[in-house]
């Protein structure tokens, strides 16, 4: 478990004080994948570095498994760091050493016996799917392979926590996908708590259980991925959600909606979980004798739960439409008139 308690970080840039972190309160439960998202300069990178004290908070406390790491001596900090793996955007591998040596490094630092190192490194390389690359050097590998080496290295000391510092930001979408799958496997198979920072909402949607949105050194919104994606409150959060959920109406549709007589019968219907499986549309259509025309929509999966977002035009008697809407609302479904989106 990682707990941030009123963590602040202030540093001087010239004569100007920069408040990188502005009172962060956050709890990452054991076994969770927690994502922190924010634009560059929001303080993500400072935040993740306070966990292993690569950056020391100015005030506040950071607790790992209940222990305040700020009170530790430097040798105790080094010991704690061995329990916290970290992977980086630019991998940070030793270019002068082989893949094997890179993965073995944390073990060499701990003076592990040679035969033990060999067995363990081979296991790790096997786990990340690179056992045939052991004798190569980092610059002979692709970005995705390098990150796998970084992951193997981070796991060498059997950590209970893994920090991912923009781990997929330098990778192409396909490679990102495979690295995220690997991270999820690590989380499930070894029950390693993962704290990751990213500026890509896709990463959060893909693997995180919870998310916190960081802006100007503050957590402006946090919750489960499902909550935040289906009901974002802050404008920044909404922007992030839109970047992957794409619930923006196409311009051509927006022009059509300018026609007031039409827009009155257009509604946004958001449904999730079990309500997706129900043939709601056809049932409503039959029951109230309405024609339903889906103008726009998408259905995605969030944390294994389907989540849909449809723009539907209702045609039929006004009274029946109102009845239909009431019936839809009585289920686990959100309905709102679309006018507000048309503006």
């Amino acid at each position, binding site marked *: 478990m990682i707990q941030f308690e009123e963590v602040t970080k202030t540093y001087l840039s010239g004569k100007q004080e920069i408040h990188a972190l502005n009172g962060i309160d956050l709890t990452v439960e054991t076994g969770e994948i927690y994502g922190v998202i924010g634009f560059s300069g929001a303080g993500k990178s400072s935040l993740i570095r306070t966990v*292993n004290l*690569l950056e020391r908070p100015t005030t506040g406390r950071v607790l790992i498994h209940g222990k305040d790491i700020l009170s530790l001596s430097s040798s105790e900090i080094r010991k704690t760091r*061995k329990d916290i793996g970290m992977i980086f955007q*630019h991998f940070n591998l030793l270019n*002068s050493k*082989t893949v094997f040596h890179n993965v073995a490094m944390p073990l*060499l*630092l701990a003076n592990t016996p040679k035969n033990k190192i060999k067995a363990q490194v081979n296991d790790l390389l096997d786990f990340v799917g690179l056992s045939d690359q052991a004798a190569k050097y980092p610059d002979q590998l692709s970005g995705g392979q390098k990150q796998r080496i970084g992951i193997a290295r981070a796991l060498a000391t059997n950590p209970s926590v893994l920090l991912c510092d923009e781990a997929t930001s330098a990778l192409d979408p396909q490679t990102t996908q495979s690295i995220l799958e690997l991270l999820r496997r690590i989380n499930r198979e070894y029950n390693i708590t993962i704290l990751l920072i990213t500026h890509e909402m896709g990463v959060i949607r893909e693997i995180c259980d919870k998310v916190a949105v960081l802006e100007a050194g503050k957590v402006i919104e946090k919750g489960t991925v499902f909550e935040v994606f289906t009901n974002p409150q802050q404008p920044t959060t909404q922007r992030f959600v839109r970047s992957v959920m794409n619930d923006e109406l196409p311009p051509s549709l927006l022009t059509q909606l300018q026609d007031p007589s039409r827009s009155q019968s257009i509604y946004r219907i958001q449904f999730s979980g079990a309500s997706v499986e129900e043939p709601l549309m056809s049932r409503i259509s039959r029951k109230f004798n309405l024609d339903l025309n889906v103008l726009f929509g998408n259905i995605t999966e969030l944390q294994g739960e389907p989540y849909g977002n449809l723009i539907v035009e209702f045609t039929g008697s006004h009274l029946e439409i109102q009845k239909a809407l009431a019936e839809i609302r009585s289920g686990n479904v959100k309905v709102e008139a679309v006018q507000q989106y048309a503006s």
Partner: protein
Amino acid sequence: MLVDNEQILEALWETIYMTSASFLFSLLIGFPLGILLVITRKGHLLHNESVSKVLNIVINIFRSVPFIILMVAIIPLTRLIVGTSIGTAAAIVPLVFYAGPYIARLIENSLLEVDKGVIEAAQAMGASPIQIIFRFLIPEALSSLVLALTIAIVGLIGASAMAGAIGGGGLGDLAITYGYQRFDTWVMVITVAILVILVQGAQSAGNLLSKQVRRR
């Protein structure tokens, strides 16, 4: 020609001896200083403003004195260490004072090239400062360090020739006393040619070694 082959060979040997001995001692002084210069910098492993400042000033002072002046200026110290201020052994003392700070700067430069991210990764792994220096910084910079030290050796070959001015012996001495003062053009040509070959050889060897240690 006023000198025979034996004299030339002896001078060559003296040059090699002066260069290698002073290189070795300079390295012993320059290497730790170079590391200290890097790790006491702001934001580095063991940031220490005052150590960093003092070190920089002292190194700059030595670096700003021309070798020919330095040689004469520290004669009392040379006498104290070697017992005499004339001869090959005596030339080594000013050479070390000349090359030590120089090597410190070269080493500093090479080590600064190491990606900050690698150091961060090392810290995140729980490596101690000593482990970071010897298992991360130096191995990552090794190839560049070898090239930097090659520059130092070439510089020392040149400086050792200048040591001839205080009777240090070696090829430079030969060139000055016979080639210059007694107008023997052949001695001049031959000593210069040998110096050129020495420098070429040192540089080629350095390049080769640097390539070999790039990956280990």
